[in-house]
């Protein structure tokens, strides 16, 4: 889920997943690479997500992933912009027949920016850092299956799991390999990536410098500066005046016209994994009744809502699964917009005259807009919505931790987070034994085909049960000047790889 800029608690999407995802996004990298480009260019990137600190196990937030993941720090594996998992610092790996032991061979000749060689001890340290008690890593819960880590030699790491985990390798793409001797990682770095940290001026900018000793292909530009904005208009103005070359994630649809109508800019509509949910408390009346949940889902015209928030951008979804997840199926027809059906379901459930409930609404866009819209729509079937506006902090305590709510709105940013419906203790309280079983089996599956088949069942079942109402899928919009090419357009898990970005001189 996504909370606003400075108070975001990224929820680990437990990814049950494939080792190599086949699902590929449409567009690939943005921009046409034509003509000559400046190998020593400075690329200026505009973003709304400043890191809170530079450590991704200490609450650095989505900003630290955006700026440092793949650029300054690297994992054993990399999740590419089109959703594939490929080897990075791992040259190779082997899984045992029972799926419980993974043996990783490290790439030779890789050094940290401080000059020290990368060894298996550093990998062990890095993995333990994610699993530590005080770790706030978004992947911590997914990696709890790690039972022990052995380092038979300097280039080999052997990880034993307590149970099979088909998404283990995928999850490792989130684990930065850090020098075990590095200090003060909240403000400094010692990674292996194509850039070193230049300077971080809090509240303003963070610069990266090309690292001459990089083990792989050198970055296509000499310097990258992330410029941070609190205000989307100020960000767009910077793009219009060429103070920045590219905006990582456009959040103000009203402003897009000025770029689409201008030949100097390219607007890329990539694949997003962020879903807006009307999450019912499935353990609180009247949402314990599946008919009531279905009725509410059917009474809201998602298409109209999406159009009013995002204009022509974004997509409708009928479940928690975005099209980029391997187990996607188009379920928009399940509980589709149908006021007559909604009224009938309510009557069956004994609410022919409607009812009223409180909707806990985070106080930042687009939640207040969506809440007002939902209130108007549900009034037509006799349901009265009381909108209760709350801060991210209140949401976290009241809704997420204490489950003290009837219904709420929240954006969920991660890919592959369908599996949360298998956890009856999650905040929305969906509790279906069969679904829980399927999710467990999927994670312990031996093949991705098996995993995919099981999660498709989960997908359909949760959609039919209207476990939540999935209002729409956000667009992922990157806007860049036409001088630029090679930038990522899908922003998967908030990454923004800068090393392939080419800028014309």
């Amino acid at each position, binding site marked *: 889920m996504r909370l606003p800029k*400075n108070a975001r608690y990224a929820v680990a999407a437990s990814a049950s997943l494939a080792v190599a995802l086949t699902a590929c996004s449409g567009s690939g990298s943005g921009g046409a690479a034509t003509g000559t480009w400046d190998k020593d260019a400075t690329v200026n990137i505009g973003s709304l997500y400043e890191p809170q*600190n530079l450590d991704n196990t200490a*609450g650095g937030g989505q900003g630290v992933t955006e700026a440092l993941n793949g650029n300054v720090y690297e994992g054993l594996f990399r999740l590419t912009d089109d959703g594939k998992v490929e080897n990075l610092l791992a040259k190779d790996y082997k899984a045992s027949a029972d799926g419980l032991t993974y043996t990783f061979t490290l790439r030779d000749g890789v050094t940290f920016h401080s000059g020290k060689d990368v060894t298996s001890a550093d990998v062990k340290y890095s993995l333990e850092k994610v699993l530590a008690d*005080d770790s706030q890593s978004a992947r911590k819960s997914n990696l709890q299956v790690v039972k022990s880590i052995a380092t038979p030699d300097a280039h080999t790491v052997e990880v034993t799991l307590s149970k099979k985990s088909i998404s283990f390798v995928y999850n490792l793409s989130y684990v930065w390999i850090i020098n075990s001797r590095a200090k003060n990682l909240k*403000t400094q770095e010692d990674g292996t990536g194509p850039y070193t940290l230049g300077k971080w001026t*809090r509240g303003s900018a963070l610069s990266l410098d090309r690292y001459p000793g990089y083990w792989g292909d050198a970055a296509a530009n000499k310097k990258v500066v992330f410029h941070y904005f609190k205000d989307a208009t*100020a960000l767009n103005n910077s793009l219009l005046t060429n103070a920045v070359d590219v905006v990582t994630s456009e959040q103000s649809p009203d402003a897009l016209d000025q770029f689409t109508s201008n030949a100097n800019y390219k607007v890329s509509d990539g694949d997003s994994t962020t879903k807006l949910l009307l999450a019912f408390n499935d353990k609180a009346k009247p949402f314990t009744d599946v008919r009531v949940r279905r009725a509410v889902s059917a009474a809201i015209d998602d298409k109209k809502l999406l159009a009013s928030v995002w204009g022509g951008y974004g997509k409708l979804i009928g479940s928690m699964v975005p099209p980029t997840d391997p187990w996607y199926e188009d379920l928009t027809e399940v509980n589709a917009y149908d006021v007559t059906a909604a009224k009938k379901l309510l009557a069956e459930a004994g609410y022919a005259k409607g009812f009223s409930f409180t909707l806990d609404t985070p106080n930042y866009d687009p939640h207040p807009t969506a809440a007002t819209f939902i209130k108007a729509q549900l009034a037509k079937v006799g349901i009265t919505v009381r909108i209760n506006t709350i801060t991210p902090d209140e949401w976290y305590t009241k809704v997420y931790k204490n489950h003290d709510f009837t219904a709420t709105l929240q954006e969920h940013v991660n890919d592959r987070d369908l599996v949360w419906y298998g956890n009856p203790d999650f905040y929305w309280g969906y509790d279906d034994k069969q679904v829980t079983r399927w999710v467990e089996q999927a994670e312990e599956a031996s093949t991705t085909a098996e995993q995919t088949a099981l999660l498709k069942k989960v997908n359909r079942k949760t959609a039919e049960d209207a476990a939540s109402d999935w209002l729409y899928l956000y667009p992922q919009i990157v806007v860049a000047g036409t001088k630029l090419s090679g930038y990522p357009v899908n922003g998967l898990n908030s990454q923004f790889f800068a090393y392939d970005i080419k800028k014309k001189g």
Partner: protein
Amino acid sequence: MGRYLLRRLAFLLVSLALASVVLFVLLRLLPGDPANALTSVGASPEQIAAARHAIGSDRPLPEQFTHWLGQLATGDLGTSFVSSLPVGPEVAARLNVTVPLTLAAFVLAVVIAVPVGFVAARRRHTWYGALLSGISQLGMAVPVFWLGMILIAVFALGAGWLPSGGFPQDGWAAPADAVRSLVLPVLTIALVMSASLIRYVRSAALEVLDSDFLRTARALGASFPAAMWRHGLRNASVPVISVLGIELASTLLGAVVVESVYALPGLGSLLATGIAQHDYPVVQGVLFVSTLAVLLIGFVADLAQRIVDPRLRARLSGGAR
């Protein structure tokens, strides 16, 4: 004057002490727990307790307060919960933006408001006198962010003369860029500030123009400009100075809107971020420094008033006792 100074300084220190207690306590009355921001979602109660312990928020309030005071006494504003960076240098870096921004805007506002205010008062019966006070009235109604957007649209997006926002990462080490990035923000604050200042200057000037002493000075043969310079300006400046002090103080943190419109890393935006993150050391640091600045500004404004107005000196500095 010496005794007055001492008394005024004592007052300043007492105010600062009271203000620091109030801001410390109020901050902790706010709903929300900084430990939440420091632990991951789904953290166990033990992990949250550990986080509270690490930042010291589990200790009794008086103990936390004396700890903070002890740090302050050595000039240390503490360390941010969130970024682990020391707060002092952070605040100093923001002051590098906010202080030049505020002072330049203030000076420009005074330079605009004083002559315009006087003309508006002296020529209040002419069409342009009325126009000037009309414009200032209108100017007071203009929201600062709106004016900022208009200036950006004209001078940055339209003419391309100035940047639309941001501050160079190298700060004042790139002086030309730093100055260029502050031109529009300074203009924005100065125009809005001068609109209200013109009203004060105008009404103070009106009072002076109708005064007996000015008529007497003129009767004694002084020309209007000479009488105005010798007696009028001085008398008119007394109420204006106190307003100036208040305006300057409120701009220091009030610049947050302008900082947001122009994406400037100033004190106001640091405060806003700190509040959102429950980052007590940052919020305390910013508020303490700005409280100190506000008190100092009040102190200087008082002194300035006494210098221009001998009546204040006579009444308070011992003669009466």
